[in-house]
């Protein structure tokens, strides 16, 4: 959901990028009465329609049209060609820097958007973005493989393949927490992870190289949890919760988890910039944050929202009481600036 862009739209993007012919113009759009929201789609889109779009339209009279295909490539193609169709786009937080570097983002108007309710956290808010929701990468273990109390309780345990045999799963993208937990397993404290020592992380990861089953997509990670192909590993909390709901024999462990967030930006040259600001203002209210946390398993970015969330719901959300003091916040600025280098090193490690 909040990660892994779809690769299938890739070819279309190249065409749109290169020729600018595939993008119809929307000059005739009624500027103030409609915004276009580019989303990851799926069940997430349904959740935000109910939690955000409909109430926002009721309050402001501005209609929200959701559209899929919110990849970085398409984003750049649109802004560079001057044919921007989107007003608000949900992206991964590294885009706060990647998009800024390529001059693709509109500065947010914090006279309109009230950020005072948003939790403290490094880089959660930038001049170009506000955090959308919180989510985490968490450790899980399979209860068929590890009975009773004999299960991995730390990343160091996950690295102990003799005591806890079986495949470990990690997402294959460089910025999916794998390098971070490899460092934790190697003894680096959670508050000393960044700037990431990629070489040391890969050296640590090499110790279990043959025991890893890589997931290229979140659907794969969920499958590995369900059918037991992996007995432990690092997975997005939403996918782990979905697997539990579907009867997977797994337990989620929030200790040494990595918290991150998804973010919302306005493309430079968005047709309805003012409407987009209004929308972001609405989405940053504790009420809207509580509504989305009830509709989908992501945590609110405004702590006040917990006043409106029942306890049994709160304790499965990122940032909820069960995760208190047990997580580290991903340094997405570091990732935004170092993704390419880290990816090259990871690929070289894979090929070796």
């Amino acid at each position, binding site marked *: 959901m909040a990660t892994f862009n779809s690769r299938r739209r890739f070819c279309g993007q190249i065409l749109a990028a*290169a020729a600018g012919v595939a993008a119809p113009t929307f000059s005739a759009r009624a500027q103030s009465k409609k915004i276009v929201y580019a989303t990851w789609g799926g069940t997430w889109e349904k959740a935000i329609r109910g939690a955000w779009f409909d109430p926002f339209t009721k309050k402001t009279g501005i209609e929200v049209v959701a559209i899929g295909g919110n990849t970085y490539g398409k984003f750049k193609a649109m802004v560079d060609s001057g044919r921007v169709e989107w007003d608000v786009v949900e992206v991964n937080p590294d885009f706060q820097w990647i998009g800024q570097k390529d001059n693709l983002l509109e500065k947010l108007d914090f006279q309109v958007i009230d950020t005072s309710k948003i939790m403290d956290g490094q880089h959660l808010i930038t001049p170009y973005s506000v955090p959308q929701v919180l989510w985490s990468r968490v450790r899980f273990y399979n209860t068929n493989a590890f009975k009773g109390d004999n299960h991995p309780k730390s990343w160091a345990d996950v690295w102990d393949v003799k005591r806890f045999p079986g495949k470990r799963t990690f997402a294959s993208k460089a910025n999916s927490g794998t390098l971070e937990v490899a460092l934790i397993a190697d003894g680096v404290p959670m508050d000393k992870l960044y700037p990431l020592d990629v070489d040391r992380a890969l050296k640590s990861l090499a110790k279990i190289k043959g025991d890893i089953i890589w997931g290229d997509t979140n659907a794969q990670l969920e499958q590995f949890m369900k059918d037991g192909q992996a007995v432990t590993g690092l997975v997005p909390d939403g996918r782990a919760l979905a697997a539990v709901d579907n009867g997977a024999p797994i337990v989620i462990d929030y200790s040494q988890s990595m918290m991150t967030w998804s973010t919302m930006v306005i493309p430079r040259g968005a047709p309805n910039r003012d409407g987009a600001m209004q929308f972001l203002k609405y989405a940053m209210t504790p009420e809207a944050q509580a509504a989305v946390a009830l509709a989908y398993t992501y945590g609110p970015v405004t702590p006040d929202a917990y006043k409106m969330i029942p306890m049994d719901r709160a304790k499965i959300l990122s940032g909820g009481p069960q995760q208190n003091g047990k997580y580290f916040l991903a340094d997405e600025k570091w990732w935004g600036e170092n*993704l*390419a280098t880290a*990816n*090259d090193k990871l690929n070289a490690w*894979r*090929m070796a």
Partner: protein
Amino acid sequence: MATPASWMSSRAIALLALPAMLFLAVLFFYPLGTLIAYSFSGSGPAANYQKILANPVYLQILQRTFTISVATTLICALIGYPLARQIVAASPRGRAILLAIILVPFWTNLLVRSYGWMIILNPKGAINQALLALGVIDAPLALVYNTTGVLIGMVQIMLPYMIFPIVAVMSRIDARLVIAARSLGASPLASFIFVYLPMTLPGLMAGALLVFTISLGFFVIPAILGGPRDLMLAQLIEFNINNTLNWGFAGALSTVLLVATVGVYLVAQRWFGLGSIWGAIAR
């Protein structure tokens, strides 16, 4: 063979080709030119190409891309050729059934098929569980998350591209030529090697070229079914387009892949005369 020109003026032919030419110009050659132009952007005119040479990982991935594509092509040829012969020799009904078997997966979404393979081939999947239950194997076979998995997935997808050109050529071969060879004393093997195979070679080559060039651009299959070392260049290009927005470098990687592919094509043309291949299929 009646040439089209015998009943149609060359100007009319040019006019008919115009929409296709315009289509290619706008949707292929223009984007391609832009892509190549991107590849020369950056800190220096050839900075992106220097970057490719500076880090061995890129050439390793290029090499891996070619190795996987060649292996896919060879396996497709070994499976596809006998199957094509079977299709040509079958009764109309048998032919329809065989074609359906080949085409139905062809119409299924690539991602769906890849997940299907993942579920069937994994250590806890149907194939391994069946073989274990039958006592054929003692431990699960490593059929997926490695190069084997990539090849299984790619061969299944690429087989129709191999089979159809071969069928097109085979179905136009006069069966009496083989009978004549046999009646003149050639063994079944000799009549196949010296009479039948050379006549079908254009179809085989056309199929091989299609399979090879399309395989070079794969990225979903190696990502889902492959192991750590099964990185293909398209995955790297996609990463640079969609994750880091380094379109200059993506353009350079694409150009290198394109040049290498055209190189293979030219070699094939020199050795096998591709003109006769396409002619043999179109005839």
